[in-house]
């Protein structure tokens, strides 16, 4: 293992104008792309995950691809992109911290020992974020490449990991950012321009007694080829997996009698919104149906009861079937479930009152996929502007 000169801390020498390449182009492309999609994912995730889930998911996919590329690039990139040249040896880390404290730390070629640990932490937590996000998306939302295999419960657990590590990641990003500020401002090492141009002043390079193989055009070519390969295969595999039928959700056609009779006063609700037992109860008390008489003749009731005995919340593994459908409240109203209330707490009464909505139980007015029992976050479109 070559632990000698190249990545040692070195005294800064001034030979303005002359530079040498340290960061290869694929690595810089990775870095700044990650900044853009990472900030997008963070903003949409921390601020309003429900409304911006589409953008959050897209940026998550982009992060996955970039991360996958970076993980492989750590094995085949140019000198300072490789894991084996990360300075992680604890005594060196402690020495570097001492140098930082007494302000004697010189510039590092590549990641300095503290920075290297932060990078490892960033890559580790980013991997966990991407994995937990994809598992959560698949299990809870029944979307994405893992929807075909994951249960709701698995998805919910993964999302609690996702949430926890989002804070860890935020902390690491801030640490990384602080490190950059300290290098740039306190020690006057041009680390930001180095990540933009790839170059550091040639004096630093020579003073380090650098033995690293130089960055060449070959790295750009190989990096570009690898990125195309990684992104293309990830997208193709991702799409083909995403197209598999989701675990615990099959789209069913509502029988005509069910759709027309239950759809007289309100649009016919998807059967996954109540358990079969609750449907039976509802069908047995139609003469007092949420404050109105909704009696039907016995033959019609029998026909509907046959359907709801076979299709109820327990036959679906969707978020709505778990958090609304399986939850029975004293009033039997879906709008009295904790999940319904929580999800609709920010929606003003005037939204429900407008003529195109009319009531809180007109799910279809905002959830365009309510008739098929999906209730995807991305299919929420709240009508605005036709207030009564």
């Amino acid at each position: 293992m070559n632990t000698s000169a190249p990545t040692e801390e070195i005294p800064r020498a001034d030979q303005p104008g002359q530079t040498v390449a340290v960061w290869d182009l694929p690595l810089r492309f990775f870095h700044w792309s990650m900044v853009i999609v990472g900030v997008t994912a963070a903003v949409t995730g921390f601020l309003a995950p429900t409304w911006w889930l589409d953008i959050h998911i897209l940026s998550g996919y982009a992060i996955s691809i970039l991360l996958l590329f970076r993980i492989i690039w750590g094995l085949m990139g140019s000198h300072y992109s490789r894991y084996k040249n990360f300075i992680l040896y604890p005594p060196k880390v402690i020495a570097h911290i001492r140098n930082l404290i007494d302000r004697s730390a010189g510039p590092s070629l590549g990641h300095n020992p503290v920075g290297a640990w932060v990078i490892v932490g960033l890559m580790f937590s980013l991997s966990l974020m991407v994995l937990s996000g994809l598992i959560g998306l698949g299990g809870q939302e029944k979307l994405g490449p893992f929807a075909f295999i994951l249960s709701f419960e698995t998805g919910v657990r993964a999302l609690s990991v996702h949430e926890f590590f989002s804070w860890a990641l935020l902390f690491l990003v801030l640490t990384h950012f602080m490190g950059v500020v300290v290098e740039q401002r306190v020690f006057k090492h041009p680390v930001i321009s180095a990540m933009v141009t790839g170059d550091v002043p040639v004096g630093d390079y020579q003073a380090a007694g650098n033995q690293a193989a130089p960055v060449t055009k070959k790295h750009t070519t190989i990096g570009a080829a690898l990125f195309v390969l990684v992104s293309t295969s990830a997208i193709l595999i991702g799409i083909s997996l995403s197209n598999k039928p989701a675990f615990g959700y099959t789209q069913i056609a509502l029988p005509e009698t069910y759709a027309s009779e239950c759809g007289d006063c309100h649009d016919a609700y998807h059967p996954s919104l109540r358990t079969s037992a609750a449907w039976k109860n509802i069908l047995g008390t139609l003469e007092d149906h949420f404050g109105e008489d909704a009696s039907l003749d016995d033959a019609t009731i029998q026909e509907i009861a046959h359907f709801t005995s076979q299709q109820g919340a327990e036959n679906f593994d969707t978020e709505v079937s778990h958090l609304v459908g399986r939850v029975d409240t004293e009033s039997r109203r879906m709008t009295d479930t904790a999940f319904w209330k929580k999800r609709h707490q920010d929606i003003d009464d005037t939204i429900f009152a407008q003529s195109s909505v009319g009531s809180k139980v007109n799910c279809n007015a905002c959830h365009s996929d309510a008739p098929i029992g999906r209730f995807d976050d991305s299919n929420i479109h709240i009508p605005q502007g036709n207030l009564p």
Partner: protein
Amino acid sequence: MTRNRSMSAKNILLQATMAVSLGLFTVGFAAASPTDDILAGYATEASALDSSFDGFSAERGRTLFVTEFGTGKEDTPACTTCHTNDPTQLGETRAGKSIDPMAASINLERYFELKQVEKWFGRNCKSVIGRECTPIEKGDFITFMLTL
């Protein structure tokens, strides 16, 4: 020739008879529309219940439509709760679904099928008044809607 002529005269007579019968049939059919049948049925029931019954009244139907009963379910004190005061306009269910106008001029099909008519009288009379409607009330209601 004579034979042929008499044949064709017979044909003309036959065709004329068919045309007249068809015309009469059409007129008869139009007169006894499904709505009239339903009204006739309610009239028979009404006479059976009350020998002094002498026909439906649009004015009584209007009163029925606009009266605030408050004797049925709490949230539906009157027909107008959901159907609005103007039967030519769209109504809205408590759940937010729009209801086609009640006026026969706009939506005569409403009063074509006895099963449907009975289903909605059955539900809504109980929701609004708290009891079944009488045949007179049902007939009055439809008669009122036929005037709009």
